[in-house]
């Protein structure tokens, strides 16, 4: 019970739980519709989903300030790629929250003349930019870690067999080997790809925060892609992605060591 009290005291934590519930409703509604359930039940689930969505908008009313503060903090990061990606991602999130607040005012009736469709599209566009920047940051971190890992592997292998002097395929992962032919044969390519894949898997396995963040951003990506009609899927798929990313996000709140820093 202690952990629930501490958990729910954080506004963000409650919002994540409602997000998980909202996308669970989307998924459930889609599944029940396909399964031919009663119209009454579908209507209730749709009402619950709309209620959760509007209430979450209410709960997010101050979040622009938080995103701006996070952007201010990110400006001081040492790594320039991380600095760029994270700052611009937070700024986009701040814009997304601002559009979201305007949408809330429109849905509540405070701004009855508001073009809800236009503002909804706008908010999803900012959300998409923020997600793309987060994924870029994830890719950059993965690349850095893979380079480090491959260097440590080659250092270990050169220690193990010091007679190997010529740069072999293990050493020359990211820089083209001078002795490599311009168009390597297919077996060499597949071997190289396999090594890259092994490296990627080992990097992700040793860095659960990075893996979690990558999965979360990938799942989240399908939501604006569907809403902006760039890659339309089904409401069920969107619901499943939203639910997965919400659960992963709840995990990072419950276990703070799983949160990717900075």
């Amino acid at each position, binding site marked *: *019970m202690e952990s629930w*009290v501490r958990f729910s005291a954080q*506004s963000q934590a409650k919002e994540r739980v409602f997000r998980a519930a909202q996308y669970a409703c989307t998924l459930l509604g889609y599944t029940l519709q396909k399964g031919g359930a009663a119209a009454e039940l579908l209507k209730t689930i749709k*009402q619950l989903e709309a*209620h959760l969505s509007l*209430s979450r908008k209410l709960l997010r009313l101050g979040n622009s*300030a938080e995103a701006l503060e996070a952007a201010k903090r990110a400006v001081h990061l040492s790594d320039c790629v991380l600095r760029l990606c994270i700052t611009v991602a937070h700024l986009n999130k701040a814009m997304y929250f601002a559009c979201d607040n305007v949408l809330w005012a429109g849905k*509540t009736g405070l701004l009855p003349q508001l073009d809800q469709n236009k503002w909804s599209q706008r908010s999803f566009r900012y959300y998409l930019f923020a997600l793309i920047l987060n994924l870029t940051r994830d890719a950059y971190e993965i690349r850095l870690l893979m380079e480090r890992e491959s260097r440590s592997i080659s250092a270990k292998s050169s220690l193990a067999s010091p007679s190997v002097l010529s740069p072999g395929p293990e050493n020359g992962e990211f820089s083209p080997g001078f002795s490599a032919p311009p168009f390597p044969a297919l077996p060499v390519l597949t071997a190289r790809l396999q090594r890259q894949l092994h490296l990627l898997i080992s990097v992700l396995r040793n860095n659960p925060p990075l893996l979690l963040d990558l999965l979360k951003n990938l799942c989240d990506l399908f939501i604006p892609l569907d809403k902006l009609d760039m890659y339309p899927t089904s409401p069920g798929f969107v619901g499943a992605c939203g639910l997965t990313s919400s659960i992963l996000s709840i995990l990072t709140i419950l276990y703070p060591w799983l949160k990717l820093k900075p």
Partner: protein
Amino acid sequence: MESFITFTNQSQGRDRIFRATQYACALVKYLLRKDSTRKELLQKLRSLESNMSSGRKLFRLGNTVNSIDAAKKTLYLSDPVLRLCLTVANINRALYFICDNVLWARSLGFLKGIDKERWNLNANRYYFFSLVMNLTRDVYVIAQLMVQRSRERQFQQKVNQHLNESPDVACVIIPQLDAFLFLLIESLKNHPAVALDTIKNACDLFIPLDKLGIYQTNAGVVGMCGLVSSLIGILSVLKTSLKMKP
């Protein structure tokens, strides 16, 4: 901005802001009810108020657990009166939250078979009992403070000075009442948290008193009391020294 973020990050902080807005809407609605030119504004206020209210009902979904946890903690207090008052108050709050959650489910279309009026009545009753227990605790703490203060020699000198410096006033107002009020104010001066908590609970009391028909006022009084108690609540979250402990 930092303090705003820390404040809103706490679930309770956000809820108090929404509560203050909800009761402010109710108050303004009451004040403008006769104004026919403001129909659009009244409509907006009505929808904002109902939106805040339904959102808050959703956010309160887990609060039963919080109240039961608080009741478990107050069970170990040393003072028996405090132990009784606070534990019973927390249990009543937990029951109020259960009724509130059931009403939330009903409003969305689940649990269609339940009697909405009866559950509403019970919710108000439990809320009323918890407020009465909280006020009892406030009165007990104030009485303790007053007894403690009256025993101080420094205070006894002060009260004699006060009664002697305006003898005409002391004759008009009953000297015992004057001395009592003086003692009350002196005791509460150094304990603003107790004073604020008493005012907050007293204001909150008008809400269930009106809903249960025990002491019917009007929507304006209810709105004003709700707004004042929410503002005091916001103060106590912002400045933890103003929050009454335990």
